[in-house]
């Protein structure tokens, strides 16, 4: 090149400097949703550190401030840490450290979700979720609850020790150790405070006990009348297989007529349903225990599988804590909670299901100012309303929104339509749940465990236990309000104290069972107490009892249960719901099509009749039934369609079962068509439509496209909903109401499965759909999903001391010592 074409030095310098400056600035900045690429791609401090963190050292010595003695941690081949400490607080310190090491981002995310600060990480997309949380004031309540805790109480010490452990990990974080999600969002972890555990509890309260029964009932009453609303959202489930055994040895069907729809003409003040939760995602949980007399080896066996949203990483973390002579507990903990939530010690095993009780009421308040209330009137006295201003900011600290929230004497006060409604919810009252979990883990008999669990205030749970002496017991435990007039599900007059709760159910009144003659106890979120036995109001619109029917039926049939059989039961694909509804479809098809002239209906009926009513993975008929049920519900409840065409409420399939028992009900007429329909014609139309939809969507029957594991799979999303970090097509042998349930969204299911045999040597088997590590490069990220999908459990290791664990089963050993 000649000199003529060469840049002069000054030009070369300027261009190179400018280009370099732009490159450095560009690499240091977020571009769109991309994090700054310079720090991200740094081979030492950047995202590549995630690959190195996926292989923790096999042997390491760690200094943790505050440790009172040495702690040995052995991580077994399933990624489960076995913590051997000399004091209980040391065990919790170590637990905090380990959970932070494996699940730091999840800890942080939960706290931010409860405090309504997600927008600071992800921007306006999280604004609705943040507003919901801040409107309820969950974090403020958690702060108050923690502040009122006796600082010398064992649970307070546990919370502080746990926080010390989490912060020891955070303080020792090298840049390369930062989890992937922080790098993608370009944020840093917050330090953990002891009260964050209470935030977690509040989040669970919101998930499990934030009922909308009252507002649902109000919407339904406005649309079809109070009489119909009382049946569609009944306080008495028409199918009775209660948790507290009622001595009937079979389910009881108390079907009555559904009152005809009579629009009230009154506008509803009920807001729309809770955002973010798809209707079909609302599931439940199972637990059951069999007494020694019905087991093969003569020991009590307990099984439990809570059904929650399935995420990666999982909501659960498996751990074993040993403090010789003080504590030896194994099970599933929620990251953020010291100890174990569901699990067992050497003497007692336990598992929970949600009670679904109504622990929330709304009150129409008399306010002094309809725009900006400062006081509410109660019995002619005015009580002040406090105001809270909440600001929402994005990651660049730009203001996204400002809300003003009001809190009245009973709780959060919101303007809904033309009314000011306050809310009283047991979750916003002082709770002893932390103490219950702490004490329960130390119980040596079922009596001690039940006593400890009396403190389990929120969220109300069906607490099931079994002990080594062979006792089994269950109790629906929590703060169950006693309402004036024994009615609930209505918006109460807030101007009088006569509307207020009169107290809470005493423990001895709570639904319970202990070593029953039937030899087993079971719960699956059904109505806990047969109203024929006790009609005290506990809730409305009870969860569909199909899983309870199936569990009870199978447990009655077996007399020599083994842990292996119990594990199989957890993924039993049989369906009491299908057993109930299929005969109605078939009988209607027979009556409508006696000569087989309607080929489409005939084919659909033949296929449904061929079905074994099991949601096996290879079933090619289950989808036909599911679609037929959707069609049936759509046609049967058309009276619940609002003026905008949207259905104001989707009644449960229990209500649909009740309606089926009344062939002459006016509800069977589909108002959207000119011709009058009957029950049979609606059933026939639904089946025929289901066949057409299935053929259109999945191809001809028996061509393979209708296979259950092709049309419905579990969708286990990453907590940030990043598809590449999710497992979005996980087969499951289950359907809408089977023991391992799966609905159309596939987002909720059995989040933890556990079977424990309480013999002289406790034996246990567990799994969950995920893995111990939140690091997506780790072998423990999602290693348990195939096993969970196949319905298999793994035997857990229960060493009494570090040396009693087979060295071949140990993948890492950490020695924790006191640090500065």
């Amino acid at each position, binding site marked *: 090149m000649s000199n003529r074409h060469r840049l002069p*030095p*000054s030009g*070369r*310098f300027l261009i*190179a*400097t400018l*280009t*370099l400056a732009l*490159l*450095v600035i560009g*690499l240091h900045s977020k571009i769109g949703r991309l994090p700054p*690429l*310079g*720090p991200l*791609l*740094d*081979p*030492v*401090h*950047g*995202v*590549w*550190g*995630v*690959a*190195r*963190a*996926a*292989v923790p050292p096999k042997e390491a010595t760690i200094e943790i401030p505050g440790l009172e003695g040495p702690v040995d941690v052995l991580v077994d081949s399933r990624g489960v840490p076995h913590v051997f400490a000399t004091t209980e607080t040391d065990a919790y310190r170590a637990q905090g450290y380990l959970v932070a090491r494996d699940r730091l981002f999840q800890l942080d995310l939960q706290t931010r979700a409860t405090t309504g600060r997600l927008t600071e990480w992800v921007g306006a997309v999280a604004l609705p979720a943040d507003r919901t949380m801040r409107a309820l004031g969950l974090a403020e309540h958690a702060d108050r609850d923690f502040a009122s805790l006796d600082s010398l109480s064992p649970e307070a010490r546990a919370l502080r020790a746990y926080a010390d452990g989490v912060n020891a990990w955070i303080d020792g974080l090298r*840049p390369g150790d930062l989890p*992937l999600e922080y790098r*993608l969002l370009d944020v840093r972890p917050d330090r953990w405070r002891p009260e964050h555990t209470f935030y977690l509890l509040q989040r669970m309260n919101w998930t499990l006990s934030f009922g909308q029964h009252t507002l649902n009932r109000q919407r339904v009453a406005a649309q079809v009348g109070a009489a119909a609303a009382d049946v569609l959202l009944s306080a008495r489930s028409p199918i009775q297989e209660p948790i507290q055994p009622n001595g009937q040895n079979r389910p009881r069907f108390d079907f009555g007529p559904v009152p005809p729809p009579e629009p009230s003409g009154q506008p509803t003040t009920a807001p729309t349903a809770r955002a973010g939760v798809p209707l079909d995602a609302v599931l439940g949980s199972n637990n059951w225990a069999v007494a020694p007399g019905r087991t093969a080896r003569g020991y009590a066996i307990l099984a439990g599988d809570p059904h929650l949203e399935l995420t990666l990483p999982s909501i659960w973390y498996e751990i074993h804590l040993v403090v010789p002579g003080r504590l030896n507990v194994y099970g599933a903990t929620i990251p953020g909670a010291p100890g174990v939530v569901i699990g067992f010690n050497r003497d007692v095993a336990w598992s929970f299901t949600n009670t679904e009780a109504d622990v929330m009421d709304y009150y129409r308040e008399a306010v002094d100012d309809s725009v900006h209330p400062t006081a509410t009137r109660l019995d002619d006295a005015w009580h002040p309303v406090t105001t809270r201003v909440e600001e929402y900011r994005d990651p660049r600290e730009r203001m996204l929104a400002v809300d003003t929230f009001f809190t009245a004497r009973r709780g959060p006060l919101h303007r809904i339509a033309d009314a000011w409604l306050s809310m009283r919810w047991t979750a916003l009252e002082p709770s002893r749940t932390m103490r219950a979990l702490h004490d329960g883990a130390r119980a040596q008999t079922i009596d001690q465990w039940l006593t400890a669990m009396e403190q389990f205030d929120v969220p109300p749970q069906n607490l099931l236990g079994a002990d080594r002496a062979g006792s089994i017991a269950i109790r629906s435990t929590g703060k169950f309000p006693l309402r004036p007039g024994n009615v609930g599900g209505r918006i109460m007059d807030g101007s009088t104290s006569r509307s207020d709760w009169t107290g809470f159910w005493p423990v001895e009144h709570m639904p319970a069972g202990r070593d029953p003659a039937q030899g087993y106890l079971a719960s699956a979120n059904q109505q806990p107490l047969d109203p024929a036995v006790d009609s005290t109001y506990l809730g409305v619109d009870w969860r569909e009892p199909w899983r309870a029917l199936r569990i009870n039926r199978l447990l009655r049939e077996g007399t020599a249960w083994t842990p292996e059989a119990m594990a199989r039961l957890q993924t039993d694909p049989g369906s009491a719901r299908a057993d109930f509804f299929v005969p109605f479809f078939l009988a209607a098809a027979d009556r409508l099509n006696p000569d087989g002239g309607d080929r489409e209906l005939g084919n659909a009926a033949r296929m449904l009749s061929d079905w074994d009513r099991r949601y096996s993975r290879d079933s090619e008929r289950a989808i036909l039934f599911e679609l037929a049920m959707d069609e049936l519900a759509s046609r049967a409840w058309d009276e619940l369609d609002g003026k905008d065409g949207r259905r104001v409420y989707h009644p449960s399939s229990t209500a649909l079962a009740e309606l089926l028992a009344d062939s002459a009900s006016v509800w069977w007429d589909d108002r959207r068509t000119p011709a009058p329909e009957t029950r049979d014609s609606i059933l026939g139309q639904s089946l025929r439509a289901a066949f057409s939809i299935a053929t259109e969507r999945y191809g001809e029957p028996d061509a393979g496209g209708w296979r259950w594991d092709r049309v419905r799979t579990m969708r286990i999303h990453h907590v940030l909903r*990043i*598809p*590449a*970090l999710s497992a979005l097509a996980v087969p499951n042998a289950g359907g809408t109401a089977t023991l391992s349930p799966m609905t159309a969204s596939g987002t909720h299911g059995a989040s933890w499965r556990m079977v424990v045999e309480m013999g002289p040597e406790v034996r246990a088997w567990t799994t969950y759909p995920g893995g111990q590590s939140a690091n*997506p*490069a*780790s*072998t423990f990220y999602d290693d348990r999903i195939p096993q969970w999908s196949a319905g298999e459990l793994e035997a857990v290791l229960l060493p009494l001391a570090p040396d009693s664990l087979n060295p071949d089963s140990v993948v890492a050993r950490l020695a924790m010592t006191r640090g500065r």
Partner: protein
Amino acid sequence: MRILLRMVLLSAAFALATVVLGWIAVPIIGLLWGLIARATRRPALTAAVAALAAWAVLLAWTAVTGRLWALLTRLAGVFELPGVGILLVTLALAGALAGLGAVVGSSLSSPVRLLPPPSASRL
């Protein structure tokens, strides 16, 4: 041989600086190299190749001690790029930062030449 030795030493400098200071050290070392090696042939190319080699070694170390390929598979999904593409972008980044740094450095090394020539009137 001297060229090879120079390259190895320069790569080691890039690697060490990355370990200590992070990615931002790469253009700085490149700039210093440009200042020092202005007399050599193609200092920018040398810097780029050395930085690329340094980061390749650091990534190889990650592959040996960690689960690089498992991470690459996940990252490929997250960024909707082939895994090898992310690796190449990373290495290219090192080369670009070092090379540009060296160009700036080698230009800076003769500051007098950067100034405009004196005007005739002042003469």
